[in-house]
């Protein structure tokens, strides 16, 4: 699976924020955007086994109800 490089990920999120909220709000959101970008980087560095694509894939909590 492909994913943007980490440096590009923050830029892409900043661009999305700019479109959604404008420049002033994007600047205010910078710490949140960095948290999201860092989290996404970690998520896309992890490998996912095929078993993770199960019908109850959403949380894994359903099987224990």
């Amino acid at each position: 699976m492909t994913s943007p490089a980490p440096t590009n990920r923050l830029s892409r999120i900043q661009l999305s924020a700019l479109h959604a909220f404008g420049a002033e709000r994007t600047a205010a959101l910078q710490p949140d955007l960095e948290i999201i970008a860092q989290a996404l980087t970690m998520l896309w560095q992890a490998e996912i086994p095929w078993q993770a694509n199960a019908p109850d894939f959403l949380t894994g909590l359903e099987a224990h109800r």
Partner: protein
Amino acid sequence: MTVEENDLTGLTIHQAIAQQRQGEISATDLVQASLARIDAVDAQLGAWVTLDRAGALAAAAERDREAKQGRFKPLHGIPIGVKDIYLTQSLPTAAGFPPLADYQSGVDAAVVERLAQAGATILGKTVTTQFASVDPAKTLNPWNATRTPGGSSSGSAAAVAARMVPAAIGSQTGGSVLRPAAYCGVLGMKSTFGRISLRGVFPLAWSLDHAGIMTRSVEDLGLLLSVLAGHDPNDPGSARAPVDDYAHAATTLASQPRLGILANWQAQTQATAWEHFRAVTRQLREAGAIVHDLEFPGGLPRAVAIHTLIMRVEAAAVHADRFAQQRDAYAPRLRGWIESGQLVSGVDYLRAQQLRRQLRQQTLELFHDIDCLIVPTVSGPAPDRSTTGDASFQAPASLLGLPAVTVPSGFSADGLPLGLQIIAPPFAEARLLSVARFAENVLPPIGAPSL
């Protein structure tokens, strides 16, 4: 006012019920003692949003009439505070959101219904951060007014610690029960995802939200859980798993519990807090526990990243309509959560859920050779009031839906409470409470804050 001047406020639930059964005290005595304590200390702590003085005294009078007839309920006459995100028929529910200050839902949350049916006296609503999220509320830490009590169940933790009530209800999406409980030096529990109904509770992130309990003894945790646990057909997330005898389990010391330390959390723990935790584990071992070092699959930062993504996206979805209309009424950090959550793609959210499922399977495998996992409840003592503290150490149990308890474990060098977090497999609350009782028995009581 010290606790010694007003002994009734120092009673646990079990003690208060025993004294009522013996005719030594009444439910009215308990409510009056709680109200007097609140009048004495809450102006400085700010734990309560609303008090129902008349309603509480009327309910207590009814319990006293029942007691004279020899009829007692499981939580007979026990004053309890309820976090202000649980709907209450007789009181407003503001959820820390100014536009909802006078919101009257006209219904009780399932938890409130069960408490009332069990004979508890709902004393009032305790302070929550806005929608149980992240911006600090007005409440102070009873041990040190310059520090946060933690959040989001800030008022519940402070009220139990300051002996205003013997128990309070909270909720946890990241660390909102265990962290404030640890910072304030009380016991806290969140059960398995779906074990306690969330009907009538403002959601924050639906796949992470849990009800929670705060008390001053493990026995009281077990008693409250026995009242609150069970299937609710009107909560789509409610579990159907059988309900065990939690009240009994909480009075039963685990014999030689097998405990696994998540040793790779050390890197995220303040050095002195880790030293404290290691000293606690030595005490547990000397008392008969069998303790092993284990590794949390993928490490703590990855779990926190998964949690962060899911929580922000679900919060953005939960609040989409209200946020579109009342954006400026939102507190700044929650607003940041929602807006950043709006920017995460569907593919990214589902990848987080895939990794969550994988992490849950890997974590459950750790329980093959142990009874419970143990870690510090908090990465360090309560910080200053600019934040509600670090949720990293409580978020994994919320992410994985696992039941967890915090037991006060002593103090930091600067005199602030710390906690031992015990985590069990899904629906193993009975085992969890038995291990918590073992820990409570080993660790010296930390007493009450001076106010």
